[in-house]
Structures are given as structure tokens and as C-alpha cells.
């Protein structure tokens, strides 16, 4: 039984909460993929006389804004649906870039030790010490704003976190007898790292990755004040939220809906991540 097959059978036996979370995540993914088909309105279409309408507001022409409108009179529902696209793309792209770079370098450092360790880990320290904002500013000044720049900045500034976690875990795992057994079996570097170390350190990495997943969506919003975010009028949850916080008292829906979406997305990613980790561990069979 391969790992994937193993996982499949486990998924079939997963508790209801996992199924719910998986469908939730699936729904968000579908929402992102088919946003143009799902959104009732053009998310960029403004109507300044229809600013800040509450959810369910129906105009004289009979158009209904299910989630209300934002501060430029755009349909919030359509923006949230389209926002899923940008936000999830940012999260997936930046998390995978930094997870890849970070865990590879971290494992290498923890396993090889010696000067490679010093070089990698001190570089990690350097990257961690430089405020991300600073690099973001430079990137915007030199490369110009845009989605690629955003991913570049997020990927470049976040990988050291993964690297440190991977490094610390690898240090510990590398001392275990089964690593020596694998070495004896003739496993070379890549195999030792991928087959022996990685599965045994995947848990903490997964925790960081799932935590970062939500963070990246929020980060995009925080970076938008430097111009690094998704450029308007393309919506993202982060920018909708940060724009909405000005209207907390007047228009709660501007933060409540995208906030709830974000919460549910992060929840599902976290719960699935933890479940995945638990079930990648062959020792923890479901109870009963």
C-alpha cells in the first residue's frame, strides 16, 4: 500500500469534521477557479450612489446586493468571490516557494553540518534580521509593483522560517539510529533527506506552512500600503478587509464577510494540515 493509497483509505474513514473541512476548502478552490461564473456582478463595477448599502439591498432597477456594497458601491459578494482568487494564489504561491526553499536548505544544513551549515544558517539569520518591509520597498522601487514582485518578496522573506524549523528538526532526527541504518543501506543525500528526514520532520513544517498560509493572505493586505499588494481594482480578501476596517461601525459587512471567509479558509487549511500530519504518521491509527 503506497502512502497515497494509504491516505486515500484513511480519508474514506475520516471523521465528519474532516470531510466538512475538506469540502469547505474544495468550495473555496472552486470559488477561486470559477469566480467569473459565480460572481453576480463585475467586481470592479462601481456605482458611487450605491455606496455602503447593507446586505440584501435591492436597487430601484431590481439588482440585489446579497452582501451589500463597498465604499465605491461595488457588489461585495462579487468582490469576495473574485478576491478568493488573488488571495489563495498569493498564499499558495508564496507558501510553496518558501516551503520549498526553506525546508531544502534547512535540512541540508542540519544534515551536512560543517561549513554548509554555517553558510546556510547564517544566511538565514541575515534574512531574518532584515525587515521584510525593507526588501518589499526595494523590490517595488527596483522591479515595480505587481503580483510577481509580491510573490518574490513573500517567498524571499518567509523561507528562513521554514529553514530554521527544518534545521532544528533535522539536527535531532539525524542522530537517530535509523538514519545510520539508511546510510548503511547506501542511501545518498537526496534520498536520506527526502525519504528519511523529511517525513520525520514534516509535522512542524506543516504547522508552519499552514500557519503561514493564512498569514500570507493577511500580509498581502499589509504590504498593499506599500503598493506591493494586488493592484486595484482586482480584489483580494486582504485589501477588502483593510479597506473595510475604516467602516467597522458604519458598514460591518465589509469586514464580516471577507473575515468569515478568511477564517473558514484558514480553519480548513489548519484542520486538514493537522489531520494530514497525524495520518502521515503510521503510528497514529484512528482510534477504535
Amino acid at each position, binding site marked *: 500500500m503506497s502512502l497515497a493509497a494509504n491516505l486515500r483509505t484513511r480519508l474514506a474513514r475520516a471523521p465528519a469534521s474532516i470531510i466538512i473541512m475538506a469540502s469547505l476548502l474544495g468550495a473555496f478552490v472552486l470559488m477561486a477557479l470559477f469566480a467569473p461564473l459565480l460572481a453576480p456582478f463585475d467586481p470592479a463595477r462601481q456605482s458611487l450612489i450605491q455606496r455602503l448599502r447593507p446586505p440584501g439591498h435591492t436597487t430601484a432597477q431590481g439588482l440585489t446586493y446579497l452582501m451589500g456594497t463597498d465604499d465605491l458601491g461595488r457588489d461585495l459578494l462579487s468582490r469576495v468571490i473574485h478576491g478568493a482568487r488573488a488571495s489563495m494564489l498569493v498564499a499558495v504561491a508564496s507558501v510553496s516557494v518558501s516551503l520549498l526553499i526553506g525546508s531544502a536548505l534547512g535540512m541540508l544544513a542540519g544534515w551536512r*553540518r560543517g561549513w554548509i551549515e554555517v553558510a546556510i544558517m547564517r544566511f538565514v539569520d541575515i534574512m531574518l534580521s532584515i525587515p521584510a*518591509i525593507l*526588501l518589499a520597498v526595494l523590490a517595488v522601487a527596483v522591479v515595480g509593483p505587481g503580483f510577481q514582485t509580491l510573490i518574490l518578496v513573500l517567498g524571499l522573506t518567509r523561507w528562513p522560517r521554514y529553514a530554521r524549523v527544518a534545521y532544528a528538526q533535522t539536527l*535531532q532526527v539525524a542522530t537517530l539510529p535509523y538514519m545510520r541504518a539508511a546510510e548503511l543501506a547506501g542511501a545518498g543525500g537526496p534520498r536520506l533527506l527526502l525519504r528519511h528526514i523529511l517525513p520525520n520532520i514534516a509535522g512542524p513544517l506543516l*504547522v508552519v506552512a499552514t500557519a503561514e498560509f493564512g498569514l500570507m493572505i493577511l500580509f498581502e493586505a499589509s504590504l498593499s500600503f506599500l503598493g506591493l499588494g494586488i493592484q486595484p481594482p482586482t480584489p483580494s480578501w486582504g485589501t477588502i478587509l483593510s479597506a473595510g476596517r475604516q467602516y467597522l461601525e458604519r458598514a460591518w459587512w465589509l469586514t464580516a464577510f471577507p473575515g468569515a471567509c478568511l477564517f473558514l479558509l484558514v480553519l480548513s487549511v489548519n484542520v486538514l494540515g493537522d489531520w494530514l500530519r497525524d495520518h502521515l504518521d503510521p503510528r497514529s491509527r484512528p*482510534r477504535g
Partner: protein
Amino acid sequence: MLRYLLSRLLQAALTTFGVMTIVFFVMRLSGDPVLLLVPEGATREHIETVRRELGFVQPIWRQYLTFLGGLLNLELGVSVVQRVPAWDILASRIPYTLALAGAALLVAVGFGIPAGIAMAIWRGRWFERPIAALVVTGQSMPTFLSGILMIMLFAVTLRWLPSSGVDGPASVVMPAIALGMLSMSTFARMARIAVVDELSKDYVRAGLARGLPLGKVVTRHVLRNAAIPVVTIAALETGNLLAGAIIVETVFAWPGIGQLAIQAIQSRDFLVVQAIVLFVSLVYVAVNLAADLLYAGIDPRIRLGKP
């Protein structure tokens, strides 16, 4: 041991040097502050005069050498924007930053780690749920939102806490919670995973077999074994709390380094940025060195330096 420490100190110096070099060039490449200093209607000649007066027309390598010279003399220079030594500007913020970071760490560790352990021990039972929900909330709530929501609830509506500023310990409560929430989630989940990992090992069963209750097995044995990822995260988060508090400090008008950093970056106050980065990187390197030493302290199998 001593040799290891010395070599790490040397590495720390190199790291700091690397950081400062990168920051120096990053700042210079992203444009000088002159345009921000002069009034909007300034003429080109005036701008050039100021630029020359401030030394920004020199070739960049010469500026770099000057900067290195200053660094060697522990001179951080005088801010061109505020006309005050950069170190003074930084120093006035450090106490606030330490207070906030400390309080936030207290929130994060004080709640996060017990929550993580509880989730691991009660895995799959119903009490795990509410804790998990809280943890996820911490992770999915943008600080800029949680901050202002807290202000509206605790300051405006309930009048329990001051809405902003730095008057006494009450002032630090909300910023610390807002800042600590995120780290708290990370701590909790990291602790949970690490503890779950350990709980499946044979020595736990052996601990139970000698009559220790599960709680004791966890506190006496599991925690230490699970500590490495948690220590790693703690080191990472400490750095984050120090410098990453930009939004929280802005929302709560907390005069820490984060706020200063963003202002200095935005006004291209090079010397202040450099001073901040120097400080942060020193703290960072120290904290991570401590973490690396702790790894070996926690797990005697991990030998320091070369294997």
C-alpha cells in the same frame, strides 16, 4: 564548548556585517530621502544642494566605506530627518519595544503552549475543539482588524482599558494580546504536533508503566523531548515580536521600534533604519544562538559544531 562559542560569535559578527551591508545597499537603491525633506515646490537646484550637503552624491562605494568606518567606531550617525543621533532615536524606543514584546511573548507562550499540550493530550476529544477554534481565530484574524475591534470593545464601549498610548501597565494589555495572538497560535500548534509526536513513543508507555500519571509523564518527559520545534519557533517569534510589531504599534499608538522602522523606511531615514536593523539583527542573532545552544542543552545527542 568555548571554541564553539567563539566561532559562533565570529559568525554573529559576520552575520551582522552581512545584514548591515545588505541594508545599506537596499536603502541606497531604493532612493534617498531628499525629495521627502524638501517642500513640494523646491527647485531642482535646491534639491541638488541638499543632496550634496547630505552626502548622497558621493559614489556609493565611498558612502559605504564611510558607513563601515562609522560602524567600526560604533558610530551610527545623525538622522538627516530628525537631526538627532540615530542611536538616541532608537534608544528611546527600545524600552517600549521590550515591554510590548515581553508582554506579547507572555501571552503567546503562557497561553499557546498549555493550549498546544492540552490539544495534544485531548486529541480527538471534544475539549480539543474550543481550544482549536481559539487558536485558529488567532491565526486568521488580521491584526489591523483585531486591534481596532478590541479598542472598540474594551476602550470605547466598556471603558476598561485606555484606547491608545503608553500610560501604565493597562496600556500594554491590548497591544500585547493583539500581537501575541498570532504567535500564540503558532506556539499552540507547534506544541501540539511536537507533543503528539512524542506521545506515540515507547518511553511514554514506559513512563506510564512506572506509575506516573499521564500529566507527569508529559511534564517530566514529553515536554523536553518536544521542546526543539517549540524553541525554534520561540526564537523566530521573538525576532518577529521585536521588529514585526508594525501594525500593532501603529494601531495602538505604541512607540516601539516597529513603528519607528516603518516611519524611517518611508522617510528614507537611512541611518535610523540602519540603527534599527543593527539592533534587531543583534537581538536576532543572540536569540538564535541561544536557541542553537539550547538544542544541545535539550538534547545531549546533538553535539555542538561539527558532528
